């Protein structure tokens, strides 16, 4: 009975404030990884996203927005729970934030079927780019293979002909090496799959030295990469065999944990803080001012996700009742991306330039990334043709 009274009172309240309700902010649900060792990735995405909101005083594209953030703890089950809650309790129509592909695979297919728009600021599993693509799913970062492909192309361009490959023994590790090999035309000196979460690579390094390759490509995300790079340098190998990898092991925050050991390493990325365009200059400066650190590529992706949403909200005037119109607005990608030119392919994944960067000294004892070369111009992922929308 009391519950009924409360509902009635609320209903009355709603009818009185009906006009004010029209100005209710658009809710955006962010499911991301803020705890565990990988928690800094979600932190970067969230901070980048919130920076874009703060620059407009809590609005995106002139429309007031409210960001709901929750931590999935890198757990697909938990991610799914949060997404359900956002949709059912909070009535969220736009979601974003997921860092890891396995969490994305658990959350995204269900969410987009419920007519919620999902904009991925990081994970880009091939399953969602090819046959499993969906009109409500947009990826504003990259398809998972892209950064590996860029390094493969770079290896071909500079004429490496005997490259040693190393990745953890799990799906993303195998995809990484497959992505590299898609554009690398030389010989493979060795292809090694390490244990996921392995911390000591002494054995692998000894075998690597014995194979005498002319370069090494590795994909070891997070702490695994830190360990590998340090041990690679300690074994004196960084003076002999060039090391290459995707940007994931060389973001500005990991570089601080690796120190000089990463100097000279070449890595593939779609973005860097030194990219010369107006949007990027504004972003990097504002980010440094707001958070006191140099943004990583994850932060740039969070920022772009927010600005993409803003561009579409502006076109529909904040009205999300017509999902089709909102989708059309998103597809135009009418925002100045911090990475420069940006378009959506038919599978709603990026068409963008991809660069290689090199880790160089910055200041007395710090290191940072410097853009070296554009490897791909207007690069599209390998799965777009399989997507029928």
């Amino acid at each position, binding site marked *: 009975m009391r519950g009924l009274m409360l509902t009635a009172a609320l209903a009355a309240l709603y009818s009185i404030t009906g006009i004010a309700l029209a100005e209710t902010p658009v809710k955006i649900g962010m499911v991301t990884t803020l705890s565990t060792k990988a928690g800094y990735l979600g932190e970067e995405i969230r901070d980048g996203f919130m920076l874009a909101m703060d620059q407009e005083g809590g609005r995106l594209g002139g429309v007031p927005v409210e960001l709901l953030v929750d931590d999935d703890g890198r757990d697909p089950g938990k991610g799914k729970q949060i997404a359900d809650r956002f949709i059912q309790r909070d009535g969220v129509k736009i979601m974003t934030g997921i860092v890891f592909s396995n969490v994305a695979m658990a959350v995204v297919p269900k969410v987009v079927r419920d007519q919620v728009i999902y904009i991925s600021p990081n994970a880009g599993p091939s399953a969602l780019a090819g046959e499993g693509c969906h009109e409500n799913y947009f990826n504003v970062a990259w398809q998972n293979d892209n950064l590996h492909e860029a390094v493969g192309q770079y290896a071909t361009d500079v004429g490496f002909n005997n490259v040693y490959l190393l990745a953890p023994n799990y799906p993303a590790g195998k995809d990484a090496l497959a992505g590299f090999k898609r554009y690398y035309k030389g010989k493979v000196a060795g292809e090694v799959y390490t244990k996921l979460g392995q911390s000591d690579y002494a054995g692998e390094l000894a075998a690597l030295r014995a194979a005498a390759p002319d370069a090494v490509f590795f994909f070891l995300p997070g702490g695994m990469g830190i360990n590998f790079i340090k041990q690679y340098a300690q074994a004196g190998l960084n003076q002999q065999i060039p090391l290459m990898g995707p940007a994931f092991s060389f973001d500005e925050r990991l570089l601080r*944990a690796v120190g000089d050991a990463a100097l000279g390493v070449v890595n593939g990325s779609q973005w860097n803080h030194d990219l010369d365009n107006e949007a990027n200059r504004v972003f990097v400066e504002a980010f440094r001012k707001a958070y006191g650190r140099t943004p990583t590529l994850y932060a740039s992706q969070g920022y772009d996700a927010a600005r993409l949403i803003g561009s579409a909200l502006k076109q529909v005037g904040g009205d999300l009742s017509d999902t089709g119109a909102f989708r059309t607005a998103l597809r135009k990608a009418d925002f100045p991306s911090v990475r420069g030119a940006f378009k959506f392919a038919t599978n709603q994944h990026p068409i963008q330039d991809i660069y290689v960067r090199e880790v160089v000294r910055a200041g007395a004892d710090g290191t940072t990334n410097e853009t070296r070369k554009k490897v791909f111009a207007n690069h599209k992922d390998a799965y777009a043709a399989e997507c029928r929308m």
Partner: protein
Amino acid sequence: MLLFFEQLLNGLQLGVMLFLMSAGLTLVFGIMRVINLAHGSLYMVGAYVAATVFLHSGSFLLGLLAALAAAGMVGMLMELLVLRRLYGRDHLDQVLATFGLILFFNELTVVLWGRQPLFMNVPELLSGTIEVIPGAPYPSYRLAIILAGILVAGFLWFLFNHTRLGMRIRAGASNREMIAALGVNIKLLNTLVFGLGALLAGLAGAMAGPILAVESGMGESILILTFVVIVIGGIGSIRGALIAALLVGMVETLGGFLLPALLRLFLPAATADGAGASLASMSVYILMAAVLVWRPHGLFPAHE
């Protein structure tokens, strides 16, 4: 062949690390009958304190000493505040409580140091490589770890076989009621043993700092292997821990190197590498199962 010897050294180095971890754990397990899952946290404390002191002072030695002191102290506090209440309890209670400690320490490091892994460099003196075997340069820092492990093993041998304290600890491991009845302060002995174990874990952590990522949760990856070592070695036996640690270190390292090569003889390379990697990660557990079938109490159990 060169590669094989280099891998032997790598196995030895991993074995030494595991020995430092398992020596303390096996004593605690053997004497106090407590399963301390939080032993890995002491390793993490060692690494964090060493890295922090190193960052601020620039001295590796100072970092190492601070790590020893901090890990020893945290260990004794842990014993006084938490584990002391668990001695008479069921193993399940101990597992729950010490698992709670893991969560506590992991979160504490995040609160104190943040999520970003800390950076710790190899001391200048040990930053190069040495050709122990001609033609295969080996990082001198890893050689220093091996040396440190041998020194610690020698120290422990002396402590346990030639000092009164060591005799009491051994006595406590084989019959704690009797030694208490003989008037030895078993409570103090427990705290000391725990402190010693923590100190060794801290030493392992501090030495691992320059090789590995110093990050929250780093203790868990080595903890599992440490448990394998003490089960193989026989609970409560330092000698067992030493031999089992070397055995596990060798199997872990050589397995990853030999198995894929072996499988490549009769399988296509890609399949062989994949299967070899999977088999190699199982090899330590297969070893443990085999030892337990042969000797259910481990190689050198302190009490049957």
